């Protein structure tokens, strides 16, 4: 191993350490979805309005389902209608992201319906990558932007 190689190796090792530190500090799961509470708002007291997705995915992980269970219970109890907004991060092509946001919003709608919410109470809209909540170009921001947000229908 030459001197430069050793130095490069050392840089890589340090960077690797910093990145993993970042990942835990920024509360991104190993599976690439956001696990923190920054940016999260509430549909009602104790009912978070959003869930987060892994890159290019629309599947719902356990924490997301638990949030959606609360949303379902609240919607049924209150009789409110909600709009589920589907969002993507900025790292995909615009048109594909519109479709991906639609897919995410519908995954949420389907799950809410599986929990007994009437389909007539839930409409969906995709914003693709057009409405990020965090304007930064960082892995943390992207994980916060890959989301669905349930808002009260006007």
């Amino acid at each position, binding site marked *: 191993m030459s001197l430069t190689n050793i130095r490069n190796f050392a840089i890589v090792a340090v960077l690797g350490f910093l990145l993993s530190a970042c990942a835990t500090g920024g509360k991104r799961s190993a599976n690439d979805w956001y696990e923190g509470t920054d940016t999260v708002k509430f549909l009602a007291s104790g009912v978070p309005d959003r869930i987060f997705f892994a890159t*290019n995915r*629309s599947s719902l992980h356990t924490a997301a389902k638990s949030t959606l269970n609360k949303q379902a219970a609240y919607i049924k109890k209150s009789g409110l209608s909600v709009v589920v907004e589907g969002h993507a991060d*900025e*790292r*995909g*092509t*615009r*048109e*594909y992201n*519109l*479709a*991906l946001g*639609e*897919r995410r*919003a*519908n*995954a949420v*709608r*389907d799950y809410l319906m599986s929990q007994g919410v009437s389909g007539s109470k839930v409409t*969906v*809209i*995709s914003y693709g990558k*057009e*409405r*990020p*909540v*965090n*304007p*930064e*170009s960082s892995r943390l921001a992207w994980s916060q932007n890959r989301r669905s947000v349930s808002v009260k229908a006007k």
Partner: protein
Amino acid sequence: MIMKRIFLFLLINFFTTNAFSLVKIDITRGNLEPLPTAISNFYIDNPEKFTEKIKKLNLDINLPKVIKGNLNRSGLFYVLDNKSYIQKPKLSHLKPRFEDWKLIKAQIMVSGKLKIDDKGRLRVEFRLWDVVSGKEIEGLALFATPSSWRRIAHIISDKIYQRLTGEEGYFDTRIVYVGESGPKTQRVKKLAIMDQDGANNKFLTLGNELVLTPRFSPNGRMVTYMSYFKNLPRVYLLNIETGIQEVVGDFPGMTFAPRFSPDGKKVIMSFARDGNSDIYTMDIKSRRVEQITSNPAIDTSPSYSPDGRFIVFNSDRSGVQQIYVMRSDGRKARRISRGKGLYGTPVWSPRGDLIAFTKIHKGKFYIGVMRTNGTGERLLTQNFYQEAPSWSPNGRVLIFYRETAGGKKGQGASANLWAIDITGYNEVKIKTPTDASDPSWSGLLSK
């Protein structure tokens, strides 16, 4: 909002000659040595007929300047500084002294004459000279209302390009795009249109609702785009001349990613139903809708082949976003993208031979081209974020948009239009008054 058809008439008489020229440009290869070109100022034949208003346009200087900008931007020409020109505009046009032009190493020279005719029309005569062989190789007279002098400059530029490359030019064209302003989290987007060189910029919508992905109709009079008007994301048509907008079809859900068919009669687009996006067409006149794909995956970004027989699109049916070609009835879909990474936004070249695309690989975005069967992939440019290529009408240049990364609170983030030759050379930024994205290149206006 209404774009008047300002360009009234245009008569062209050839008064030359297919004189053999020694100077030629081969545009199939990357051109590292642009052709040294002189563009003389034009001379005014009857200054007494030039009203104050026309005088203010400084056409003797500005018209050749527009030609100079076009030729320089093409990367195929290098226009020499006016200060080095020895001969005066009038004699350059009537009786050029080729030794003078050889001395400054020009290989071709453009000269011109301006006149206001009895009907108040602007008459522009131009000549293209092969300095090497000492011959006139092209000459034209064009008439128009003085206010549309820029189009004359573009048409002359196209003639020069065509004479020296043997292919049609792309200067007498327009770009429709999305003008952007405001913070990333609440971006305001407006449809905008401008000449290919950035002049005559005009906004077509007010920015009250989000608008995306405008695309020209083949005749350049209509634009199809997506709008969030009343929070219902749908595909719209806009007549550029009348300003009239209408929603395309009454789909019970989001429609997006629209493009015209090559005959201009249909719009092809995606329709999302229950979270699944498939490709549909709608006949503009009869409003008849046809479903083209039916697949549980995302099928979007469709683009017709110029003969209308095939459709290229992207789909994640293999698990990730890839490019497919199918027959225009939706049958026989075949994946053509084979390299590593994701592939999207395929667009069929107007020449029919290539497909331009966006590729995402290891966190970088590329604009590239491949043959229609997926072979011969060439990546032209790599960056943090760029996508959505659109072809020049001659299939030689791609325009696309590029975004820079945002720091804290999105600072430093920007979106701009860029163009690049399919040779991979001559990457140039296209100036726009605001940030810009989603460009679509029109066909030649005078065709």
